[in-house]
């Protein structure tokens, strides 16, 4: 009797499991079908309309065709692929403007809906696209997202969007930031900023946290804009050695030295990295002005500094002669060795 009951129970359980399995399989099957249909529709759009997009972007007087307007998500995905490919590979202001206008008109409603999605990945994708395609009409929708329980990554994307569409709001947000980002993340944000907005970070520089300070200096160097030379030279007076070294690195990246006076005190700096950077920077000044200082650096206690000074001297047209002359009168064995090594290497590479 007990066995009979157990068998019945077993059968019921098996039947239930079977039904669940069938249900699960059907779910998987329909999901797969949806995915296949989605991909097919997306690929069809790519196949049929990539050429039309090319014509619209590049041919003057080409009339915009209504068939390019997306009817659903698969077409939006296809347009994302097309636009991303263009943005990643081609610079053309006219094309960027056409994409912006199109996105504000026909993609806006899709991304607005995505911003409300419960899934983080969908919201993140929407935020990426809003920044990439410059859909400024969604700025208010983005601000509303701040009222929800957003993630750190989402807020980073929001900052990026503000930096593009409303720089003043971006600075405001950065000032009262609760979340802390890495230096590299700040650099990614700052690199997008227009010159007049970016330069504001140098005002009241010391009030920023260290990671922002470092990112500002590094970005200024990477932008290679001569307008930042004064700002970076002012930072050489900062007490923080790291800031001094980074400012010198930034100035080296920009590669224009108009006056060597602000740099001369650093030839005798206590920090060898600072002396090394001075040795590098003097590459941009004629040797006639820098030789006495480079000679001093050639006799430095640090190998890297000596090496850099010798290299900088050797890069000048008369550098090798100067180094040979130095060898005849110097009594510093380490400096002599370095000068000789650089001469040999330089002559060997000719």
């Amino acid at each position, binding site marked *: 009797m007990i066995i009979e009951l157990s068998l019945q129970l077993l059968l019921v359980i098996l039947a239930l499991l079977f039904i669940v399995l069938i249900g699960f399989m059907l779910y998987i099957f329909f999901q797969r079908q949806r995915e296949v249909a989605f991909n097919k529709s997306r690929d069809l759009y*790519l196949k049929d309309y990539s*050429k039309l997009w090319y014509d619209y972007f*590049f041919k003057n007087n080409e009339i915009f065709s209504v068939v390019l307007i997306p009817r659903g998500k698969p077409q939006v995905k296809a347009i994302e692929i097309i636009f991303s490919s263009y943005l990643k*590979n081609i*610079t053309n202001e006219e094309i960027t403007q056409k994409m912006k206008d199109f996105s504000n008109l026909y993609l806006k409603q899709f991304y607005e809906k995505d911003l409300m999605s419960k899934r983080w990945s969908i919201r993140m994708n929407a935020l990426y696209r809003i920044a990439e395609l410059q859909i400024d009409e969604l700025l208010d929708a983005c601000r509303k997202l701040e009222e929800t329980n957003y993630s750190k990554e989402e807020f980073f994307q929001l900052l990026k969007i503000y930096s593009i569409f409303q720089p003043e709001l971006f600075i405001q947000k950065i000032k009262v930031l609760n979340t802390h980002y890495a230096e590299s993340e700040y650099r990614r944000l700052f690199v997008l900023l227009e010159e007049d907005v970016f330069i504001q970070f140098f005002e009241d520089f010391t009030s920023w946290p260290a990671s922002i300070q470092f990112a500002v200096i590094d970005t200024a160097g990477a932008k290679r804009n001569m307008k930042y030379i004064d700002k970076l030279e002012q930072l050489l007076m900062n007490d923080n050695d790291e800031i001094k070294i980074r400012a010198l690195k930034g100035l080296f990246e920009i590669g224009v030295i108009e006056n060597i006076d602000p740099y001369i005190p650093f030839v005798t700096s206590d920090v060898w990295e600072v002396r090394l950077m001075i040795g590098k920077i003097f590459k941009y000044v004629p040797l006639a002005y820098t030789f006495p200082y480079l000679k001093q650096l050639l006799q430095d206690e640090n190998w890297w500094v000596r090496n850099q000074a010798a290299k900088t001297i050797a890069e000048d047209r008369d550098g090798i002669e100067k180094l040979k002359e130095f060898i005849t009168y110097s009594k510093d064995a380490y400096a002599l060795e370095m000068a000789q090594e650089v001469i040999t290497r330089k002559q060997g590479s000719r």
Partner: protein
Amino acid sequence: MVEVKLTKDIMQEQDVKKYFEMMLESVIRSRMTITTIFLKCVKNTSSEIDYSNVNTQLAYFLMENIRKTDLLFQLEDGEHWGIVFLQSSDVEANAFLQRIFKLLKQNRTIPNEVALKASITEIRNNDINFDALLEKNKELLADDHQPKWHIERIDDYRKQSNEHVKVSIIEQNAIFRKVLETTLNSMDIANFTFEVTAYEDGYSFLQTKSYQSGHLHLILMNDILPRNNGLEILHSLRSMPNEKKFIIYMMSERNSEVAALNAYEGGVDEFIVKPFNLRLLEAKIKRTFARYWL
């Protein structure tokens, strides 16, 4: 009958003929423009000049004033001289003539009444032979009423033949690959016809063996590619014996001096950082091909 006086030390028509045929082959093979000048004395019937002596004097005068790369010869009739200029267009030939005419007017050893006339032929194809060239120029200078220091031109051989160029695009991104393909297919470069083929990775390009033909070959490729990246392809192509036929443009997302330096040292002709302006790419390609002919 007028005695034909041929000048010693100067190459004669028959000697030059075989050299000329050889040079004519280089016109196509090495895209070398040749320009010839034929010179003749303008005879003054009223003067009592001994033209056979003048011709000898003129021959030596010309010998002294040509460049080492130019080939001076005398025609069998003893009245014409020919000069072949290698790697020179009619602009240079014309400048040469102006210089020669000026020097001759100042020359005191040659009688003042002596004047020259000339014809210039710029050759950019091999639809001509030496005898035909001579005949045409002689005909052009045959008119005794032509003024002194007159210059005639023959434009029949200026038209360059169309050269077939293979173009290979190696780019992973399908959309951008198509953009490049369309752009290059629509480019119109005088005297060159493009045959554009696109590949999605390095391996499929190397498998086709299309790069083994002798055609001039423009390669537009990414530095990072699946299966045989751009640098591997670059190395393979530059190791080939006829590597000079490749014009290699490398595209990269890496905006670094080191990456560009490595690429140039590896043998690329252009290093282009992505994203770039397509019009700029077109302009660069046009300039590259413009350099092939003078």
